[in-house]
């Protein structure tokens, strides 16, 4: 029940769709696929969370690791359209100040 799909945004950003639940079971999958997607790209990574129904500290930790990698490449990680429950976790952990949070809706 977790999927990571690479998008084609056209602009100078790398679009990554997250779907389903990120927990201890799916975290290894998420980590591997995310870092493979990032590679050494210099563009911003956009994590589209509109279909992400669940995340916990493990998933957030992986996003933080991805952000560190991105900063090394002088790029950034942006969190797009998280559902209220996901947004809440960014908020209570203070990670909403660390990532660029985007609401296009």
């Amino acid at each position: 029940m977790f999927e990571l799909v690479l998008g084609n945004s056209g602009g100078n950003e790398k679009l990554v769709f997250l779907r389903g639940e990120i927990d201890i079971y799916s975290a290894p999958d998420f980590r591997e696929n995310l870092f493979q997607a990032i590679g050494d790209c210099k563009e911003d990574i956009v994590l589209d969370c509109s279909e992400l129904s669940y995340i916990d500290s493990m998933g957030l930790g992986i996003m933080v690791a991805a952000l560190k990698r991105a900063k090394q490449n002088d790029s950034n990680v942006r969190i797009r359209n998280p559902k209220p429950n996901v947004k809440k976790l960014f908020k209570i952990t203070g990670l909403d100040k660390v990532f660029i949070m985007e609401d296009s809706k």
Partner: protein
Amino acid sequence: MKPLDSVSVLVPAKAEYVSVVRLTASGIASRLGFDIDDIEDIKVSISEVISRMIDKRVSSGRIAIDFHLFSDSIRIDFRLSDSSPKDIFAGGADDLAFEIIRSLMDEVNLNTDNQALLSMVKKLERAV
């Protein structure tokens, strides 16, 4: 205080069973009358504890989760089938998982005397 009812779930300490406990928890919490936000808080908190137990290989056996239902709250106790180190939140207050649980639940007690490794409480109609 004695709970009105108790539900217990015993699962292998393996990653693939965390979602099963989440599902059970949401069923129990909705029966008690918690709203969607509170149910989500409970699910996340339970996942954090169990994931930490599995991740730190605190238990090689099974994890017991006891849901104690009161008229105005739910208490969730985590017990282990084998004796094991009890420092699952070694990072302490800085720990991301512990921070999340502390924010989402009304009470969190580590190493309680009723045999539970961790015990946490969520109140109904929580005053915000």
